[in-house]
């Protein structure tokens, strides 16, 4: 299955956010949710079909203009599944955030079901003065099953230079992924914050909030299950500093 979805959020010039483009197709359906509040637009990603399944080629493009504030969430976890023998499924997300724009990407976790083969490519470009919260949670296998293969390939740039470059591979073919250097458990979550202060330091036994070399922060948590990860990262997504800017 091939599918593309695209969102363009623009400032409406009165402190609000207008969705100039909101277009999706199954399985990437987009729904504007809630009422416009405090200048924010909230969009939920709704899985319109099972998967991603092997062979799927999915693409989501997000553009946040100056003065626009967009929060993206998803209604449920996404479940990468094996499907028929085919090349890996791939979801490519690109996002640009202009100076004065704010993007929160706070979806539910991705679950790597046994036998899946999935690649998630994320490319985010934040202009100087733009703000970003980018969350990715991954659960390696459903309850008591081995993990499928997932590769995450993430690059976040700020003001034209690379702020955060990260790849993570789990499942068969990723040596030592569940050992004591990489995950040591079956769930991991990351939250990259740009233009948003988070309290740096250890954040529980298996989590830390770290100032990046450039202007941004990363919170990372690992755990035996996603509850531990959510326990460490959820509160950071609800910081008072994240209240909509005036």
């Amino acid at each position: 299955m091939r599918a593309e979805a695209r969102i363009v959020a623009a400032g409406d010039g009165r402190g609000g956010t207008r969705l100039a483009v909101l277009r999706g197709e199954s399985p990437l359906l987009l729904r504007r949710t809630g009422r416009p509040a405090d200048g924010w637009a909230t969009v939920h990603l709704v899985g319109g079909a099972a998967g991603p399944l092997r062979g799927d080629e999915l693409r989501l493009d997000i553009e946040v203009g100056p003065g626009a504030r967009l929060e993206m969430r998803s209604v449920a976890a996404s479940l990468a599944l094996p499907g028929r023998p085919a090349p890996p499924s791939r979801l490519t997300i690109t996002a640009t955030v202009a100076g004065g724009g704010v993007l929160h990407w706070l979806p539910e976790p991705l679950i790597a079901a046994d036998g899946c083969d999935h690649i998630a490519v994320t490319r985010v470009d934040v202009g100087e003065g733009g703000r970003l919260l980018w969350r990715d949670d991954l659960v390696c296998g459903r309850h008591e099953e081995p993990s499928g293969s997932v590769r995450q390939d993430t690059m976040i740039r700020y003001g034209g230079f690379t702020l955060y470059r990260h790849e993570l591979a789990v499942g068969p073919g990723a040596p030592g992924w569940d050992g004591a250097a990489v995950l040591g458990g079956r769930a991991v979550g990351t939250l990259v914050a740009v233009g948003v202060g988070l309290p740096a330091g250890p954040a529980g036994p298996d989590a830390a909030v770290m100032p990046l070399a450039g202007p941004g922060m990363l919170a990372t948590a690992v755990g035996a299950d996603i509850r531990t990860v959510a326990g460490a990262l959820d509160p950071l997504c609800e910081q008072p500093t994240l209240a909509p800017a005036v």
Partner: protein
Amino acid sequence: MSLASLLLLADGRLPSGGHAHSGGLEPQIANGRVRNVDGLAGFLRGKLATTGLVSAAFAAAACADVTRSAELDGGLDARTPSPALRKASRAQGRALLRAGRAMWSLPPIGREPHQPVALGVLAAAAGLTPADASIAAAHGLVTGSASAGVRLLGLDPYAVHALLARLAPECDRIAAAAAARAGDPVDDLPAAGAPLLDIGAEHHATWEVRLFAS
């Protein structure tokens, strides 16, 4: 290339301060994730496939073109979210440069580059190839943590060296894959991360008493 120069560069007795670092093992022993040789094996396999691949690729890239050192250094910053690990890598880079300057004639690069960049620059100065730099990086990474494991857990040194021998083919494979990408643009070089190493390093940096610097 000179095989003897490569052996010098890869020798654990090179006075570059490597013995002061456990490569992230000490915190994982403290939290109980590594208790024996099997736990060490899982740790080393994951480390080799992540930081090992990245270090080897950046060492090879710096060796192939030392004028890219500054750009490569920035690339490692973007791949090292933990401030404690950035600090440890730069401290080891500085110590390595000091040893290297005594041994060969090094081109001017920053005072405190990340360790893989320094290693690549030393390799180039010694007349070695990017593939040599890459195997020295991968080998140094696993042997450094392994010897820290012997000291921290009192593991049987024979069993640990048997493990290192089993990991040697994997070490070769990772180094070859890394060297093949030495000419790639910095954003395209390997970026495999290890979340537990980052988290462990941040916790470790807050301890009042520790055996290793990182």
